[in-house]
């Protein structure tokens, strides 16, 4: 043993810590006033369900984590050296029952969590279409490029860059791919979870907006120098407004043809919003075909599905 003795009581740092935590919490709450905490402010059924799943799981985990921490820290306090009233037994006598509890208790909680997780994962699978008042889903083809997002509406035959207009209460089927850019991740926090956009490969993400409004989106996966500026806006509006917007678009003279597309392929940062009255209908499948090889059968399979 050293001659060292801890003369000071342990209460002072603990009190300071509690006060500090309270201060930190208050500061954060004050800073949060009037700020849009996107994940806690869902604007679509998917984001809403993902939020509730997160909160429910959080409280489920807390029901075991908090008591465990409480017991640990109260033992740490009770059996401190200076408390000579507490019993002391230098030999650990952990009985069979305690050992069984150690293993069974977390197992039960993890089974519960898995039971919540498994069906939720099935239910919230991104490629599943969302039933929205019997209306068929609206398909929007999304192409990640260096460093902007191109949106093609195959049914309306229009296209946009860094801006996507959608009707509310209708399932939107985003078909994500990429061209001449590293893996990107398509994320609109207000509407729901992200999915990767990759070259020669289509990932389908279904989202729905329940309220009109403007929702920011971006790439969540780093893909090069222009990564932070690769943002877009989702404009959700009523079906009538959406239809009117589509009609207005038709009057625009900009057209997304091969030469315009090649211009987009050139790397650019913080690209402005662009609207195209018409898009070359074969464009999307052509850019998928660009990446032949082992991916080829997937593209054919994908096209057969439409």
């Amino acid at each position, binding site marked *: 043993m050293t001659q060292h003795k801890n003369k000071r009581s342990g209460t002072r740092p603990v009190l300071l810590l509690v006060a500090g935590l309270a201060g930190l919490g208050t500061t954060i709450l004050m800073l949060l006033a009037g700020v849009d905490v996107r994940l806690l402010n869902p604007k679509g059924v998917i984001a809403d369900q993902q939020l509730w799943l997160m909160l429910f799981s959080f409280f489920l985990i807390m029901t075991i984590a908090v008591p465990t921490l409480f017991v640990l820290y109260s033992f740490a306090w009770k059996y401190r050296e200076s408390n000579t009233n507490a019993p002391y037994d230098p030999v650990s006598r952990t009985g069979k029952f305690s050992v069984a509890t150690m293993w069974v208790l977390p197992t039960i909680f993890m089974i519960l969590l898995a039971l919540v997780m498994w069906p939720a994962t099935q239910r919230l699978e991104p490629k599943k279409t969302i039933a929205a008042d019997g209306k068929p889903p609206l398909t929007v083809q999304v192409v990640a490029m260096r460093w902007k997002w191109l949106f093609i509406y195959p049914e309306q035959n229009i296209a946009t860059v860094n801006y996507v207009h959608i009707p509310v209460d209708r399932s939107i089927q985003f078909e994500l791919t990429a061209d001449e850019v590293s893996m990107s991740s398509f994320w609109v926090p207000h509407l729901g979870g992200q999915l990767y956009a990759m070259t020669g490969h289509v990932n389908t993400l279904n989202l729905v907006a329940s309220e009109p409004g403007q929702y920011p989106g971006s790439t969540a996966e780093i893909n090069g120098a222009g990564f*932070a500026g690769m943002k877009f806006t989702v404009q959700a509006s009523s079906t009538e407004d959406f239809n009117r917007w589509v009609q207005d678009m038709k009057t625009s003279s900009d057209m997304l043809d091969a030469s315009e597309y090649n211009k987009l392929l050139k790397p650019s940062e913080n690209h402005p919003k662009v609207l195209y009255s018409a898009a070359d209908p074969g464009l999307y499948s052509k850019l998928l075909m660009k990446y032949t090889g082992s991916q080829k059968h997937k593209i054919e399979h994908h096209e057969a599905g439409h």
Partner: protein
Amino acid sequence: MKELLLGKLDGQALPHEWFTILGSITFILATIATIILITRLKRWKWLWNEWLTSVDPKKIGIMYFIVGGFMLVRGGIDAIMIWLQQAISVDGSQGYLSADHFQQVFTAHGNIMVFFVAMAFIFGLINYIVPLQIGARDLASPFLNTLGFWLYVGGVVMVNMFFLLGGEYAATGWLAVAPLSGKEFSPGVGVDYWIWSLQISGVGTTLAAINFIMTILKMRAPGMTLWKMPLFTWGSLCSMLMAVTVFPLLTATLFLMFFDRYLGMHFFTTSGGGNPMMYTNLIWMWGHPEVYILMLPAFGAFSEIVSTFSRKSIASYTSNVLGMIGVSVFALSVWLHHFFTMGASANVNAFFGVMTMVIAIPTAVLFFSWIATMYKGRIRYDTPMLWFLGFVAIFTIGGIAGLLLAIPPVDFQLHNSLFLVAHFHSNVIGGVLFGIFAGLAYWFPKISGYRLNERIGRYAFWSWIVGFLMAFVPMYILGLMGATRRLDHYDSSTGWQPFYVMSLMGGIIIMVGVALQLVQIVASFMQKRRLHDSTGDPWNGRTLEWAVTSPPPSYNFTVIPEVSSRDAFWKMKQHGLRRPVYEDIRMPRNTGSGIYISIFAFLVGFGFVWEIIWLVVVSLIAIIGFVIARTFDEDIEYTLTAAEVEKLELAREKKNHAHYAHGRVDAEDMGLREFVVTVIKWVLDVIKNRRWRTW
């Protein structure tokens, strides 16, 4: 001709941007200062014979700590640079770093902290402590150990080499995601530096891991069965088994990427039939176990510390060991949870979600084992135990966040956000780094012969806790606000800036903590007579490392102990220690082969980075030559006779007593004020009496 000689190297590669110039000047000045100092002190021979060529795992362990400590500061500066950029780059402002430079900084930060800080400290602890704990005099292969260390140093030099030549590091994130890391999107030498720094140090890790598995399995003291092994040794064994399993995978993956970049192959490219998703899978098959490779020895260290400071044997030893084995096995089957968002089917995602939850069970068992150990204990709160209490809170926060991320639909929203960043920093700082700090404070008296200053240690601890909470709680919130990681600029309308600023302030407090830790070591050195550990057993320890003097002799044990139970030293103390009967000891000879091979391994990497083919060929031949020469070297051991051992032991005892007699028992551990006053007095004394003339 020039191309043949120098490859891609030309004047452009020399430093010409402010950060490379600054970095180069720092490195060159530090090198020159070190050379001058060693020459003035006439310490070259000593340095070479006693340290650089040493095969003593204790000395190699200390060298790991020193290099890892420098890298901690280096990676810490990167961290502050990241925070500073994000705190100021709002709206029109691009901050003080370009996007590309910013991306290089966070890539380097991740690589340095994981490979060159955490791995170094873990290997340092294992090197120093494991042989002592199992009653061994050395490792199974002393040569592989020095080679592993020097390959690690080769990786350290390689990761910093871009300052001097090339001016760019990988800007791809710490795992160099494909296809971003391919030639198409990253044509420069940055990714090549990344590949070769990891490749060289990774091979070193594989070799070191094989060596430790052999040592632990084959060289334990008589009577120490596997189920009587100390828990730190168990944690290290699990960790090293995992390292041997997954590091070859990293090596192979890096080679595939190297083929893509150099030979124009198409493993991970977007075109030509390549598949970047393959890379994502391969790199995480290694990357996830990697964090547990770091974590398991830390778990083991915490088990030892809780048991020692509660003055109780560890509760349910078997469950504790099974918990660590469980973690190490399941950790191999959870890698896909790093990319639920890549578009796998719901069943695949859910399966890996379940596996991730399964791994939480053995982890929880470890926590229960510590709780049961504290129950009816007599707990001393020295700094190692404080680090344990800090670890429990922060690791649990990280663990809860991790379980949320294990639920695929929740992960869709949180993935790649700052919530994720906060999560893994909670686990790696709270778990690995605090484990290392606890272990260092715990074993420091064994390593140096005097314990660390407790007062300044407590200040450092509280700075870390406060700084951590201030830095990372805002990051969790930022994640919920939808802030993605790695943003070099953002809009003020998001309301994120105050949180980034708060996070920066937390980072600065953490830096204060690091500074206090350095002060703590210096202050302990200044008071080393008072803090002297004359017994070799300052904490009333339980395992064999405390049975030898501090610091232990090069041969660790004069007589190899016989072990009959767990907590072997605790039992010995109860039965009384016997006077040793000295015997001849065979010791391995020092060797410079590890250094030579590593220099040429570095040159192979350097040659590949700059495409200097002759250098690669020459260096490869040199490596093979040195390995063959070493294989035929028969004279690799020497004998210490019993008489010599006795003489050494007597001398050590005498020195120990002399120390003890000088100890001022009444003095306190010095506080910060006393430290500052002492340092100022010393400096004034040096200036006034011109003491430098005698140096």
